C-alpha cells in the first residue's frame, strides 16, 4: 500500500471534517451574534463577522419587555418538560418491566397493541387529540399540555428491550429473599438501571422542551404559551425587536445545552440501544 496516498487521504478527510464542523457551528454563532448585537447592527446593510458593539444588556431588555411573556413561557416549558420527563419515566419503565418480566397470557397482545401506536405518526393524531382534549375542557391548561404526552410507546419499548437483557440473577436472589415484584423493581432493578433512565429521560426532555405542534394547538392563551410557541409568535409578528428575539432563542436553548453536556454520553448510549436495529 502506498503510504503517501494513505496519508494524503487522511489529510483530505481531516480538512473536510473541519470545514463541515465549521458549517455546522455557523448557525449557533449567528444566534449568539445577533442575540448580543443591537437591532441596528443586525439590519446593517454591511454584514460583519463581529457585531460592532456587544450588548449584554439585551438579556435584561428581553425580560423587562412587557409585550413579551418570555419569563412566563420559560416557566411553562420548564414545568412541562420536567413533568413530562418524570411521568414518562415512571409510566414507561413500569410498563416495560411488566412486559419484559411478568409472565402473563396476553402479554404479547398488549405489547403489539402498544407497538402498533408507533406506526401512527404522532403528528397525524393532532386533530383527533385536539378533539379529545377540548372535550375534556383541557385547552390552555398545563394538564392538557402534559397528560396526553405522557404515554410514549417509544420509551416503553426501549425499557422493555433493556429489561429483557437485564441479568436475571439479581432479581432471582431478591425473589428468594421474599421480595415481590413491586419491591424487587424499586429496590433492585431501578438502582441498577440508571443508564437507561438517564438516556430515555434526556431524549424525552429534549423532545418535550422542543415540541411545537402540540403546545401550539393546546396552549392557545398567552399564559399557556411554551417557549417555542412564544418564539414562533414573535417570528411571525412584525412588532418584536430582532435582537430580543435572537436573545430569547439563545436563552431558550441554554437549558438543553446544559442537559446535553451533562448527559451526552447517555444520549448516545440510549440512541444506540433503542433497539432499532
Amino acid at each position, binding site marked *: 500500500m502506498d503510504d503517501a496516498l494513505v496519508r494524503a487521504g487522511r489529510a483530505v*478527510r481531516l480538512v473536510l471534517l473541519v470545514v463541515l464542523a465549521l458549517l455546522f457551528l455557523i448557525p449557533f454563532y449567528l444566534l449568539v451574534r445577533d442575540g448580543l448585537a443591537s437591532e441596528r447592527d443586525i439590519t446593517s446593510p454591511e454584514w460583519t463577522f463581529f457585531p460592532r458593539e456587544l450588548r449584554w444588556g439585551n438579556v435584561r431588555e428581553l425580560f423587562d419587555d412587557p409585550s413579551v411573556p418570555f419569563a412566563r413561557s420559560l416557566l411553562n416549558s420548564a414545568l412541562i418538560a420536567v413533568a413530562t420527563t418524570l411521568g414518562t419515566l415512571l409510566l414507561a419503565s413500569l410498563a416495560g418491566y411488566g*412486559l419484559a418480566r411478568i409472565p402473563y397470557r396476553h402479554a404479547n397482545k398488549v405489547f403489539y397493541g402498544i407497538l402498533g401506536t408507533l406506526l401512527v405518526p404522532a403528528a397525524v393524531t393532532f*386533530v383527533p387529540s385536539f378533539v379529545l382534549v377540548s372535550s375534556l375542557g383541557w385547552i390552555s391548561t398545563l394538564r392538557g399540555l402534559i397528560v396526553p404526552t405522557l404515554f410514549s410507546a417509544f420509551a416503553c419499548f426501549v425499557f422493555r428491550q433493556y429489561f429483557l437483557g437485564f441479568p436475571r440473577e439479581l432479581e432471582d436472589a431478591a425473589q428468594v429473599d421474599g421480595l415481590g415484584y413491586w419491591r424487587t423493581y424499586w429496590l433492585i432493578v431501578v438502582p441498577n438501571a440508571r443508564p437507561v433512565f438517564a438516556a430515555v429521560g434526556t431524549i424525552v426532555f429534549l423532545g418535550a422542551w422542543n415540541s411545537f405542534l402540540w403546545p401550539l394547538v393546546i396552549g392557545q392563551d398567552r399564559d399557556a404559551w411554551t417557549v*417555542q410557541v412564544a*418564539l414562533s409568535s414573535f417570528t*411571525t409578528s412584525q412588532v418584536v425587536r430582532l435582537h430580543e428575539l*435572537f436573545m430569547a432563542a439563545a436563552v431558550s436553548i441554554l437549558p438543553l445545552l446544559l442537559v446535553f453536556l451533562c448527559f451526552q454520553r447517555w444520549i448516545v448510549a440510549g440512541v444506540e440501544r433503542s433497539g432499532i*436495529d
Partner: protein
Amino acid sequence: MRRRRALWFWVFVGPFALGLALFTYVPLLWSVGLSFFDAHNTVTPTHFVGLDNYTAMLGDDAFVDSLKTFLVFTAFIVPTTYVVSLSLALMANRVRWARAFFRSVFFLPAACSYVVAALIWKMSLFNGVRFGLANTVLGWFGTDPLPWLASTDPPWYWLVIVTVRLWLQAGFYMILFLAGLQRIDPALYEAAAVDGARPGWTVLRHITLPQLRATSVAVLLLLVINAFQAFDEFYNLLSDSRGYPPYARPPLVYLYYTALGQGQNLGLGSAGAVILALVIAVVTLGQARWLKLGRTDADG
C-alpha cells in the same frame, strides 16, 4: 399464583396501557367518527354527511397539492440526510484526532428546536435582504441578493427548508451509523486487506455497506416517518403576520388551518387526518416491503 401474576402484570402495565388507549386509540376512533359528520366548532355533531368530507378533501386542489408537496419534500430530504449522515459517520469514525469533538459538533443541532433553527435560517442566514449571511456571501461573488423564501420560480425556498432539517437531524442519524460501524468485526477488514482490496470505495461497497444493512433500513424508515411529520419548519419559515403563502403547504400545515383555523371545521380536518394516515400507512408498509424489513443476513 397465575392470577396473582396477572394482577401484578396489570399493576405495572395497566396505567401506561390505559393512558395510551385513552390518548391514542380513543382520539383516532373519534376522529374517524367525526369525519362522517358536519362538525364545525363542535366535537359532538349531529348532522351525518356520509363521505362528503372525504370527497370534499380529495376534490380540494390545495389538499391534493399539500400531499404532493410532502412527497417532493420526502424525495429530497430522505436520500440527502441518508448520504450526509452516513458520510459524517464514516469520517468521524476514522479520524484519529478530536473524535469526541467532531461527534459533539455534528450532534449538537439535535438540542435545537425547529422553531429556533427556523428563526436563524429565516432571519439571519437566508434573509431575503442584503444583510443576510447567504446574500452577503453571494455578494462577494458579485451576485445579486436572492429572495430565498419568497421566490417560487426558481423555488429557492426548498433549499432553505431542506437545509434546516438536514442540519437538525443529520447528527442524530450519524450516531446510529456510528453505533452500527462499531459492531462490524475488524477481522472482515483485515481479510479484505489480505485479499488485496484497497481501502476506500471497494471496501465501502463490499464490506461496510452490507454490514450496515440493518442500520440503513432503520434509518430510512425513521427518515420517512419523520418527513411525514413535517410541520414546524414549514410553519415557522413560511408563515408571517399575513398568514401562510399558498405554496409549499405540507398536509399537516393544511390540516392545522382547516381544523383549527377560523372555520374550526373538525369534520373536514378529521377526514384529512384519516386520508393522511392511510397514505402514510401505505407508503411505510410499501417501503418496509421494498427494504425487506426483518431480513438480517448481511450479504447485501
